């Protein structure tokens, strides 16, 4: 071994000092045992080092960098050799902050992927590689007691959301959930949520169709529109209420809201509208009366009212 840098820790707080030492073995500086050890921080030579000869003939140089202001720095221990500067060892030093507590943790039960999808905000950049883990446990009531642990949910690199698969969930029981952030300088935790997966179910929007005029279907009254709609098929087992919003295709028109429409009434006549005017219709649904999240608004259905 020629030269070896030793560091108390490869990661320090941004702005903190760092002290490193480099020991050169005699067989490396075979030419001149008293040759001077030099330090480079990145590409700049560093002043302010102390060098001494150890009992066994090795040379030791110690340097203190007063303030580390960049998140990544390369420290090189060198020897002058002829007119070249020989690098004998290098050490990478990382500087940053302990992770801030992740916040705005929210979860939705997705019936398409059959998983509980949670997302959060990671907080300010701490300049260090930080691992986020979604932790949870099965519980009851308001999650005071931990019953069974649920395996950690580790998001893909750089992503701030994670999906807990169906097999780890009890859909109608409370579970405690939080996000843990960890880097070389520390660990932090988001506030804990206590939720029941089915109570945060988010349905897919219903589907709307125009009703083609036919013998069974009487033409709509003047100023009325007739359409057919159906909740999202995989959610038919869930009792839900829906809302309709409509707006005429006119400048500065705004949405008017109609609701609740219960998911049994699959055909709807919307009246009180302007004659011979095109209207844009959208609907959304939510589990009801049991708690749930509103679906997104459905794709638009455009219908026109008859002339007067």
């Amino acid at each position, binding site marked *: *071994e*020629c*030269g*070896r840098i030793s560091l108390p820790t490869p990661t320090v707080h941004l702005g903190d000092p760092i002290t490193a030492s480099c020991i050169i*073995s005699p*067989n*490396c*500086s*075979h030419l001149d045992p008293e040759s001077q050890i030099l330090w480079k921080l*990145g*590409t700049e030579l560093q002043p302010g080092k102390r060098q001494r000869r150890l009992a066994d003939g090795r040379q030791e140089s110690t340097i203190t960098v007063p303030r580390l202001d960049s998140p990544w720095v*390369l420290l090189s221990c*060198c*020897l002058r*050799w002829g007119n*070249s*500067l*020989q*690098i*004998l*060892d*290098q*050490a990478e030093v990382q500087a940053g902050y302990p992770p801030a507590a992740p916040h705005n943790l929210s979860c939705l039960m997705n019936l398409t992927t059959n998983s509980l999808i949670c997302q959060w905000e990671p907080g300010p950049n701490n300049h260090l590689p930080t691992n986020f883990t979604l932790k949870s446990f099965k519980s009851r009531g308001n999650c005071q007691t931990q019953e069974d642990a649920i395996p950690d949910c580790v998001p893909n690199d750089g992503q701030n959301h994670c999906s807990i698969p169906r097999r780890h969930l009890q859909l109608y029981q409370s579970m405690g959930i939080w996000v843990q952030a960890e880097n070389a300088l520390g660990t932090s935790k988001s506030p804990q949520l206590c939720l029941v997966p089915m109570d945060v179910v988010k349905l897919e929007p219903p589907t709307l169709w125009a009703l083609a005029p036919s013998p069974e279907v009487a033409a709509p009254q003047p100023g009325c529109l007739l359409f057919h709609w159906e909740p999202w098929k995989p959610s038919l087992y869930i009792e839900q209420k829906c809302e309709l919003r409509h707006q005429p295709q006119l400048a500065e028109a705004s949405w008017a809201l109609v609701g609740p429409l219960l998911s049994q009434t699959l055909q709807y006549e919307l009246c009180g509208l302007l004659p011979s005017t095109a209207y844009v219709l959208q609907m959304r649904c939510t589990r009801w009366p049991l708690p749930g999240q509103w679906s997104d608004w459905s794709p638009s259905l455009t219908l026109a009212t008859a002339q007067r």
Partner: protein
Amino acid sequence: PLRPTSSLPQSFLLKCLEQMRKVQADGTVLQERLCATHKLCHAEELVLLGHALGIPQPPLSSCSSQALQLTGCLRQLHSGLVLYQGLLQALAGITPELAPTLDMLQLDISDFALNIWQQMEELGLAQAVPPSQGTMPTFTSAFERRAGGVLVASNLQSFLELAYRALRCFAKP
């Protein structure tokens, strides 16, 4: 010894030149990545360390323009490639990002060494016992593996430069 120019099949020489260019290209990628990621850009800064690590450099005397000699040149080229295979294996675990580049370099060098060995066998030039890699340096830290990578890649480029000039002479019709 066989007369240099006419004895080797043209396609074998063209393949060797192609393989050398590929290995050189792989070596350049390794050098560029070591420079970009670890700021180790000049082999001249690591000579002292290279001495301490004891990185061997294979001879190519029979390929030099002054003493160009086919059998000796092919044998030295082949043993040098076997040595470089060993050196690259000793660098295993260099960094996760560089591993694919190192793997590609090893695969291309072993293909090249095999191509030469088989041709030497067909020409009856092959030694009875294929050359072994000999003792390899041990790289005891991540830095030594990276610095070793810079030194080995740099030595390999000069080794191939010399061999390329020699084989080009044999390749001229």
